[in-house]
């Protein structure tokens, strides 16, 4: 089952020296993750721009979709796969 998170809560991301995503912190928990796939969304530049880098990540307990908001540099959790 998939949970779509309406509010896209902010999360913290940990990157290694090469800039790769290696862990996510959310709700006080740290989850080491591995990136399965990634893509970029660059949309609506004429209105409210959406510029995001999406990562589908897998951890020991999570399969999640997170994104980096390239407008303000924040990380968000968009979807959790149970």
């Amino acid at each position, binding site marked *: 089952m998939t949970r779509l998170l309406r509010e896209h809560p902010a999360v913290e991301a940990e990157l290694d020296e090469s800039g790769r995503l290696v862990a996510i912190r959310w709700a006080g928990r740290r989850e080491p993750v591995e990136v399965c796939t990634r893509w970029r969304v660059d949309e609506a*530049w004429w209105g409210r721009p959406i510029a995001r880098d999406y990562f589908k990540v897998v951890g020991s307990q999570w399969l999640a979709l997170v994104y980096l908001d390239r407008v303000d540099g924040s990380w968000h959790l968009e979807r959790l796969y149970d």
Partner: protein
Amino acid sequence: MRAAGLGVLTSIEQMFYHCGTPPAATAAPPSLLDGLTGRAMPAPPYAELHAHTSFSFLDGASSPADLVARAVELGLSGLAATDRQGLYGVVRFATAAEEAGLHPVIGVEVELADPLVPDPDGLVIPGRRPARRGRPSPTGGGGVRRPLAGLPARPLPERARLPGHRAATKEDHRGIGLPQRGPHLVLLARNAAGYRSLCRLLSRANLAGTKAAPRLTQALLADHVEGLVALSGCRESELARRLRAGDRAGAHAVAREYARRFGGPGGDVAGAGFVIELAYHLLPDDDWLVAESVRLAAELGLPVVVTNDVHYARPEDRELHDVLTAIRHGRSLETLADLRTPSGEHHLKSAAELAALPPGDPATSNRQTAHAWAEGLANAGSLAAACTVDLGFERYRFPGFTVPGGETPFSYLVELCHGGIRRRYHPVTPAVVRQLAHELDVIERTGLAEFFLICWDLMRFAKERRIPAQGRGSAADSIVAYVLGITRVDPIRHNLLFERFINEGRTTYPDVDIDFSSARREEVIQYVYERYGAEHTGMVCNLVTYRARSAVREVGAALGFPRPLVDRVAKALETYDPVMVRRDLEADGGFVEFFRRPGEARDGDVPAVRPGARPAVRPGGASDDEGGPGDSPASVAWLAPGVAGLPARPRAGSVAGLSPWERWLELCARIDGFPRHLSIHTGGMLVTAAPLIDIAPLERATMPGRVVVQFDKRDVETLKLIKLDLLGLGMLAAMDETLALVEHDCATCVDLDRLPEEIPEVFAMLQAADTVGVFQVESRAQMQTLPKSRPSCLDDLVVEVAIIRPGPIQGNAVHPYLRRRQGLEPVTYLHPSLEPILHDSMGVILYQEQVMRIAIEVAGFSPGDSDGFRRAMGTWRSSAEMEKLHARFVDGCVRVAGMPRVDAEELYRGVAGFASFGFAKSHAAAFARTAYESAFLKLFYPAQFLVGLVNAQPMGFYPVEVLVNDAKRHGVAVLPVDVNASFHRTTTEWVGRPGWALAGTAGDDGRHDDDPGEPLPGDSGIDARPRPIRSPACVVPASAARDRWSAEGAVGWGVRLGLHLVKGIGEEHAAHLDAERARGPYTSLPDVVERTRLPEEVLERLIRAGALDSLGWPRRELLWQLREVARPARGAPRGGGRVAGRPLDLRLPATPAPDLPPLTELERLGDSYAILSLDARRQVVGLFRPALERVGAVTNAALAERRPGPVRVGGLVVTRQHPMTAKGTVFLALEDETGMVNVTLWPDTWARLRGVVRRNALLVVDGSLQRESSVVNVVAHEIQPLVEVARAAGGPARPDGVRPMGHAGMRRLA
């Protein structure tokens, strides 16, 4: 480990680039990581092999030159232009690449009509929604396929087939996204054979399909594989579509079949015929697709290349690409989600950027993929290097001119010249013989004999068929062209310089432009097709690029601006240049709110706009064309400054951070010069030795049966191919018809070739600036200078034609000449050696030939070098190059002519200043001759000349109403349109000689102007002949001159306006209407309806224009009857049947009309202007004359006698000009019933009165009268609507049909 929380942006790009920091997009030496070992290794040169330029027509957002420049910046070793379905931009691309030192690869991205291997499930070409039930598709689809959910409906062709519409020739692809269209394939030309294959393939596909949709089938492709390399294509290729749909077997079959077809795997990529393309655009399934493609390539042993399917040069150009996509689909950006390219990554990338993408990272992709990615990058450079195509087609330029046995083209040319010289010169002087021998010598050495023979042959054909024709341009410098009959200007008599036309040092091809009568040019074009074969002949295309209005409209619609606002902005523009849109709107007072800075926006004016939301459009759809932005909530909403939530770091050059208004203007400027579509060039024909299909792709033009090449005039010149400019000149058609009428009406045959060159009456007319309708010297600027320059011979007229042009005006060459001409300043020469060269133009440098002569005779240049010097002066060159020429010129003047260095420097400055606007004397001389001949015809055969001009429209400077009113002021009776008297075309009609003509010399002083003369025919439609206006600007020849130069009865002819002036009556009605007219007069309205078969709205226009007055019924009663008896234009039963039950069908008389009020004169005049934009009986200002007199306005004719000072005039605006050279000054020509006057508005006056001038056709101008020589000008201080001024003085109301000038001086018709 480190945390990347809010505000940490350094790693944003690193997410996708595995080399630590994002690679800089510069030409820094790329260093790739080896995908297997991770060791850094030197990067091989990378070339982008899949790139779309702006010549992909709304699918490429950068010009070829921009892409080349960016590729050089990024350090690419080569670049391929692979535009969609055409080679439109390859010449510009190859030229730009050559100049930049970049290796060009020529290719194309084709869209195939069918899959390569069977596709029963519609994986490759999805089905589209079929025609509605019960309406089988005319395209043969049969409606078998079921519509796929979510796919847009394809527009049905039959929707366009309404009655009266022409058959649809375009396939409408709007709203159909790439996934719903045919699969793509990229083809690159490996060599000349490959280029030929591309041309043939595209030509045949174009000819098999429609104008907009070539039909490129697999079978056709299979026949054209020689010399081609195929790349598997983007994610819309058949291969990628099958892989994405999970059809690996099908994908394998496709790859195997293409590899077999294009030449197998080959030893290395340079020899391969089919190559798998790898591209990564940061889309969700890109990782997977690249890996799958690599696996497939490995299994089949096929090489791979990395490309980026480039659609724009820089990341920020993505925004323009989205806008272009919206334009292509006729949608706004908001509604484009399913059609826009989902990724913004289609820009040119360097090798380092591509190498750093995830597929190249062994840590994120498998080893096989990473290895293939690195290999693909290297392969791209190698493959590009293996593709070399030379576009030098010079050797194919001559089609092979057949000459009599035993002759060579040159010997035959010599023979023709010797025959021609005896016809042209009596006697043949040694100077003539010397010049001919010199030119033939140069022609032999440059190998251009065939070129002259081709031109000669065309003129021979035209002469045989009596098609008026004459050469112009620099060809008139040549005595060979003159004796062969190509030109009509004697180069010896006019002291012309052959080296301007041809010299041995010239690198570009000589240019011969031949003007033919516009009415008969098509015959000549058909002859060229027959003479050289359709395989070797084609029309050059004309690239239609964005202009200010089209840019504003299409970009505005794409950005989602409300239509009324887009309309208002577009209509407010005076400029044609998209870059100048901002300046133009800033000058227009109506848009001041839009230019207000965000902080300056007035509170309350700007409603809160939800970002991204479309503002509601005012209900009712009323246009807010008139008035300011405040009157439309929809428009005001767009005043919103910027939008919240902009990127923290918007890219440089991005329009994302701008307000909608600023973004609109900026994108309009960026779209400048983008090709929009193709049309046929006005006259360029390409004639080649090799079959044309091997040199350029051909495609259908909109004109049925006409084929054009995909290269435009500039491309053909670059390729050094032969182009014949067969131009249609309206004046030649007008003069031809005038001569035919003179012969018919007056039994007089006028041979213009033998017309004496110094008829004093003609020059008197020119000096008086009475030149409405005269070729080349009719513009307002010409009329302003003619009384000052006072031309008294043909050479003076040559100067006049050459001098009143933007260049000399801008270069301040006009005033020195005019002052010297008027004796206000002495004629001096900087040095005696210049006198023989500049004698014709009184010491002022005017002609390109003079620059060359100065270089040759004063500075010691060779003829070839002098031409190079002339061209270098006229175009931009590097400062070092200019300095070299400067030094050589000055040193030459000092050494050869003994000129002091200071004078030599001054001469150089003069020459350099002139060269930017140079004009060939030969060209001016050819035009001056035509100007002189047309002036002769206007003076002595005004009625016939007016008929010629009216029938040759559109042409010339003035609309028909001005020509007609001018003729009336010269005493020509103009008779109204009448179904019982008019033919389809305008004709002459005998009205009898006026009293002033019968009075002989006694009538010359105007005292007999009111004499009735011979009685007017009863059915003339006018009450009296117009009285000639006796003013210095209106020359009516004296009886002695008429006796000498024209036929006796010439003044007894009037002009009957033709039915063609009524909108809706076209050429297609001509034969039928004239035949019915010959059968006898129409007796009633039903008779007219029955016999003319015209639709109801056209008949209504005829009634309103007064064309049915001769039936004897009042117009309102005719209109009443019309509703009952006319055929409806729409909704008529198919097959042309009648509507049952109408009185006409039942042979019943129409119901009698109730008592209807008669038409007032104001209504009659308004209708006449609305339908015909003129009135035969009176000029509209005459209606207001009593009121104008009451407010102190004087007539234009009276201005000639008036002293300088304050003055008030009223009139109809007939031209409005904003010359770029005038720095914001605007000129109006104001016409009343007595003549025209020039009104000048200084920039501040224009800024203040712009609204009044633009919105009113009839104006009252208060200003000051200025007089210089006999030139009269009114400088406006205040302008008011004439109708309002007249109404206050008890005058009539506004006639409804008289409309203000639209854009470019066009008056909109009803």
